[in-house]
């Protein structure tokens, strides 16, 4: 199956938040009653009941006001930290490139949440992890993700990665004339072998609070590639040695009793 990506063109986003509603609707997620924080922005983070939200940033510069909207959600990394650290192998990649969690295998251990460079996965009641699954149920039935389907301005596009990249590059050339810092975020050459949700940003990643070069923490690699293999080998080695010792002691004890002239254990203590 071809790799399918979501291209989010923040220059076209009007923060209507139809994507938030469509996501809640399709995934049957309840609304969250949150505190008003003095901003038009509804949510400040993902949660087990909120897979996506529109971040809203304002800028005043030389008597000009400008809005920067960015739909936040799981990035669906190719080299995903959550897949690497999940001890139950509950998180995997679909053929089209979405990072999904197996409900039955998930134990709610929270490791994915600790290692995600974007802080996306959230655990419900210490039981199960919830996050955007790139509408893998819809996509496997040849439908677009709910947010892409509902987006009125065409800010959310979904399709084969090549086509999405082409559209993004064409759009970037236009946008850079007005926003000189505009850039694409999530290309294969940038980090984590590319993310299957990638952006056209109007400002540098730091402006949105995004890591410039997100990476899988070193500790995750040490854990997975060194400590976990050691955890299999060492106990097997110890148990094997104990079994060999028990066997050899029996063999040598039999030999000793056959040849009574051999001095037994504990004979010479002053040597």
């Amino acid at each position: 199956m071809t790799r399918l990506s979501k291209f989010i063109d923040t220059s076209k986003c009007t923060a209507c938040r139809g994507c938030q509603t469509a996501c809640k609707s399709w995934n049957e997620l309840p609304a969250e009653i949150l505190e008003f924080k003095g901003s038009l922005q509804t949510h400040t983070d993902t949660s087990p009941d909120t897979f996506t939200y529109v971040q809203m940033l304002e800028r005043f510069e030389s008597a000009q006001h400008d809005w920067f909207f960015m739909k936040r959600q799981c990035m669906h990394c190719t080299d995903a930290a959550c897949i690497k650290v999940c001890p139950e192998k509950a998180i995997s990649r679909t053929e089209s490139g979405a990072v999904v969690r197996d409900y039955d295998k998930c134990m709610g251990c929270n490791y994915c949440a600790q290692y995600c460079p974007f802080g996306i996965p959230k655990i419900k009641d210490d039981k199960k992890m919830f996050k955007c699954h790139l509408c893998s149920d819809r996509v496997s039935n040849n439908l677009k993700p709910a947010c892409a389907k509902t987006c009125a301005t065409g800010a959310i596009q979904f399709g084969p990665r090549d086509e999405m990249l082409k559209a993004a590059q064409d759009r970037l050339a236009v946008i850079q004339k007005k926003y000189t810092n505009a850039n694409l975020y999530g290309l294969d050459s940038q980090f984590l072998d590319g993310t299957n949700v990638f952006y056209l940003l109007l400002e540098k990643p730091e402006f949105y609070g995004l890591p410039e070069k997100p990476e899988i923490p070193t500790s995750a690699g040490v854990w997975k590639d060194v400590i976990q293999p050691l955890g299999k080998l060492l106990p097997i080695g110890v148990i094997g040695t104990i079994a060999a010792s028990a066997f050899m002691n029996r063999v040598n004890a039999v030999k000793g009793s056959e040849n009574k002239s051999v001095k037994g254990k504990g004979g010479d203590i002053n040597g």
Partner: protein
Amino acid sequence: MGKTKKKSGEWIQRFGKAAIIAHWVHAAAFFTLAATGLVIFAPSFSFLAAVFGGMQGVRLVHRVMAVLFIIAPVVSLMANPKGFKTWWKDITTWGRNETDFLKAFPKELFGYHVEMPPQSQFNAGEKINSLLQLFGCTMLALTGLVIWFKQFFPVGLVQWALPLHDLFFIINFCAALGHVYMACGLPSTRHAINGMLSGYVKEDWVKHHYPLWLKQMKEERN
């Protein structure tokens, strides 16, 4: 310690009541922690979750046992600081006898007759196990507390606490397997279990395995 007692032949006290109680509480906590930890550590042990009534039960038991695991050695230290000091002094003393012991040990382990160099109250292997457990358990407790109360610690610290918790579990668990085998299974050393049950071990056995300790006790008595 060092008193003798008539049973069948001379018996010598190796451990006091406080040390014995602390040891078994700590051991019970250790193996329950291992069983509950394995549920997450190795997917092939996931079935153990059912024993504790699911993941919520596993979480609760792991935390309750963690408290016992930390309290047991601390209480025993406070109950008998002198005994703790004697133990600490012995396990941190290392010389030629200890090095030679480790060289000769593989032969003894596989049941061949070998002259072992004379040992003090604890032999070189016991010294290594003591130090490993002391350091490893401290690290398990510290990393465990970071993971338990992760909201109070920077995410980078939690990210290192998780693999280190696993690492020290692996090391301590393997050391514990060897420890149990030598205390209860290996013919030449299995008399040692008596020291952790009644507190007393046979003088004959001490003469053979820990002659320096016997010498030291005699000197102290004179």
